[in-house]
């Protein structure tokens, strides 16, 4: 092996790993706050990436219509839930979030979409669309069963994944898409060339890790989310709105997913169903991080990315086998190291 190949593989691994780290962070976040293992995370990635890619070609992505439709359903659920005590302010707030916002987004998207729209506007639109879908998804699918077991939440999560993936095919077709790069700059460094795109990946990943750390460590809202994660009932008793915590977790997860998608779609062609596998690798990182620790998840993600890069070079046939069996020894070590406390289940 010569050094150049080694460096190339490392670079490749770290770039992939950074994206897995972002997804891993989002998964940890959602799981910690809502106990939902977010299988549809992969769909947030593809929705973000492909909406952005379609906007770049001047088309209006179907996802914005989905956001409007989901908004209506969410509003109907809110009305139904509040049917015994209809307060005008409550309804107005729900209508603003669930009706006005997606419709405004729809109008903005149809107006602004065009071949000459600046990249920044396209990114903003794609992010807003996926963010809306994320928040509504929590309201519709998970909020009504928030009290049930992890297993039931997980199955619901699978259901959401199937529905969203199917819709993805309707919106984007079976063909893969690529989006324009965020920046065309490139920085040579020895034998390697760092593209502006990969630098953006590193930068945003680090920014998110630091941002989440600050958010959870130093803001009241972040602490409230952590409290919800530890004990739902306890959090409610001290006045934390656990529903809001769930929505914020899903908001963050969908935004992170969409950003990861937008970051990788200029590098690799994405298909409507690519997200699942990417999400799963983020998942591996999250598991290695124990679903609790952000820095550990980030390190694990880099590891996963690097192992993937090296195994695709040396044993490309067994790349996935190697990546997915990677976590077994880690899991065993983790559960041996864990104190033998009694788990109160259900």
């Amino acid at each position, binding site marked *: 092996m010569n050094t150049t190949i080694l460096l190339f593989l490392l670079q490749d691994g770290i770039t992939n790993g950074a994206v897995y780290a972002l997804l891993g962070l989002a998964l940890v976040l959602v*799981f910690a706050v809502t106990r939902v*293992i977010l299988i549809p995370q992969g769909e947030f990635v593809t929705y973000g990436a492909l909406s952005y890619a379609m906007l770049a070609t001047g088309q209006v992505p179907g996802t914005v219509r989905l956001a409007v439709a989901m908004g209506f359903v969410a509003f109907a659920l809110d009305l139904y839930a509040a049917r015994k005590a209809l307060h005008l302010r409550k309804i107005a707030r729900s209508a603003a979030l669930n009706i006005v916002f997606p419709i405004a987004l729809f109008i903005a998207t149809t107006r602004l979409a065009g071949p000459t729209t600046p990249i920044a506007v396209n990114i903003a639109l794609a992010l807003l669309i996926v963010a809306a879908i994320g928040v509504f998804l929590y309201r*519709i*699918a998970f909020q*009504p*069963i928030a009290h*049930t077991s*992890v*297993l*039931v939440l*997980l*199955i*619901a999560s*699978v*259901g*959401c*994944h*199937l*529905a*969203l*993936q*199917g*819709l993805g*095919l*309707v919106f984007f077709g*079976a063909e893969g898409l690529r989006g324009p790069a965020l920046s065309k700059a490139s920085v040579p460094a020895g034998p390697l060339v760092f593209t502006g795109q990969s630098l953006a990946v590193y930068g945003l990943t680090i920014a998110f890790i630091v941002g989440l750390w600050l958010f959870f460590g130093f803001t009241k809202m972040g602490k409230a989310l952590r409290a919800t994660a530890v004990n739902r009932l306890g959090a409610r008793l001290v006045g934390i709105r656990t529903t809001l915590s769930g929505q914020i977790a899903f908001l963050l997860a969908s935004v992170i997913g969409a950003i990861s998608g937008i970051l990788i779609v200029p590098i690799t062609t994405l298909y409507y169903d690519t997200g699942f596998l990417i999400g*799963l690798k983020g*998942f*591996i990182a999250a*598991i290695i991080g124990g*679903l609790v620790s952000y820095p550990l998840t980030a390190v694990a993600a880099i590891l996963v990315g690097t192992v993937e890069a090296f195994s695709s070079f040396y044993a490309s*046939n*067994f790349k*996935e*086998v190697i990546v*997915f*069996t990677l*976590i*077994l020894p880690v*899991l*065993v070590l*983790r*559960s*041996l190291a*864990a104190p033998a406390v*009694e*788990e*109160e*289940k*259900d």
Partner: protein
Amino acid sequence: MQRLPLVIFAALMAVIPLIPGIPPFWIVLLDNIGLASLVAMGLVLLTGVGGLTSFGQAAFCGFGAYTTAVLTTAYGVSPWLTLPASLLVSGIAAVLLGIVTVRLSGHYLPLGTIAWGIGLFYLFSKLEFLGRNDGISGIPPLSIGSFRMLSPDTIYYAIWIGVLLAAILTMNLLDSRTGRAIRALRRGHIAAEAFGVQTPRAKLLVFIYAAVLAGLSGWFYAHLQRAANPTPFGAQAGIEYLFIAVVGGAGYVWGAVLGAGVVIVLKEVLQSYLPYIFGGQSQLETIVFGILLVLLLQLAPSGVWPWLMARLSIKPASKKPDTSLKLETRERAAATSETLLHIEKARKQFGGVTAVNDVSFDVNAREIVALIGPNGAGKSTTFNLITGVLTATSGKIFVRGKEVENAPPQEVVKLGVSRTFQHVKLVPDMTVLENVAIGAHLRGSSGAVTSMFRFDRAEEAKLLAEAARQIARVGLTDQIDQLAGSLSLGQQRIVEIARALCVDPMLLLLDEPAAGLRHMEKQRLAALLRQLRDGGMSVLLVEHDMGFVMDLADRIVVLDFGTKIAEGTPASIKTNPDVIKAYLGAAA
């Protein structure tokens, strides 16, 4: 077990293919439902009953299918001979994966299964001798003599006989000594281990059982399709099996069959009719299917089968054990002088906190000793040291002269020490009788296979009789068939005492037995404990109700901040200045 519904169901399934004019396609669907039921049934046991969620079951189908595919095509082995081979390979794979997996705790377990599930799928699709992505085709059909099961309606009977047998064996297993141990797993391991259940072994057992059922399904699949390729053994399939089990009602054997029916028929209906309604939109069925799944879980989170049973108000038949059957009992000490429990400078530190600080005391035969002290005095920790739930940092504990040196709870209970818990640890969805029978776990010996084929009935009757006797002894005969979770907390504590009595203990450890009891119930409990003592048993109890303790105990040991501050008769304890100080604060 209700035989009639089973016979009706079997007869119904036997008649279906004979109905004239039945579309052949329906038979194909029923074949698929049968195959999925087998896997889901394993998951019912593994996930619903045992609490071990697995996404990897499809991979075990793969082991079953590929084993027969390779043996029949490459080596020309007869399909029936490959059946044991298929089951064996799935079983061995389960042992290897299980040793790694079942040790995982909490959420690591399902996540771990996703990982190796996907890993195995890619392995199937990359290995040369398994035909890579194309798989293996040309697998011979099953045949009996010259009758070859080439069409879906001939293999139908083979599949459904398999399903029915599996259902019967699974129900037999659940309704047995081993079954109770498995059912106790989901509620944590401490209570089960306190009565001698080897929880890691029980977990591995259900894991292997589920894998063998999946292997059977895979074997059928290979001979139904007469080909095997990696796709049906991937992560998606693994997830689908899990939600078949959840939709049907994880925890119910027939829920697996119902769930398979609901999910497969639903998918088929969506696939064939949606294009008519909405035009040829591709993948529309997955969208609708996903949405329906979410909707269903919101309406019936515990699954369709329990929901249906509640609608039809069908209740499981109650058991009337024949209480004349007797189990062998332990030899009792005749004299009162024997020291049953001897604790010598037991110490337990959690990091910098010393929960139990060099505590020494004895419990003699035929004696009721109370362990009292303010909250946080180390009483429950002492219990956990004696019963082996925690290992002491230093010090020695002897039971009947034998040192229990870091023995696990399963060994301590064999010495005749049984206990109840401060926080009730019963299995809420098992009846009082079944819960109490867990206490008699070590007094039986039937294993899983014996139970599946019902060779355990004589012993089982004795175990249930013993449980019923102990329930009668504590005065809960009227509640014997109720679910433990439906009783009041006070009654649940009494059920725990009955369960502990089923061990036939020499020494009974009771952690706050009177909490939540009414006055009359407390008096009855005190009378029971006195009667037990007079019958040759010793009791060590933790209790906060001073009236109860002073009235009942022969001797009292007082702990404060982990240290023994007094020991003596109730009268001497009442006037002990150190005790008064500990409870009421320093007198000025």
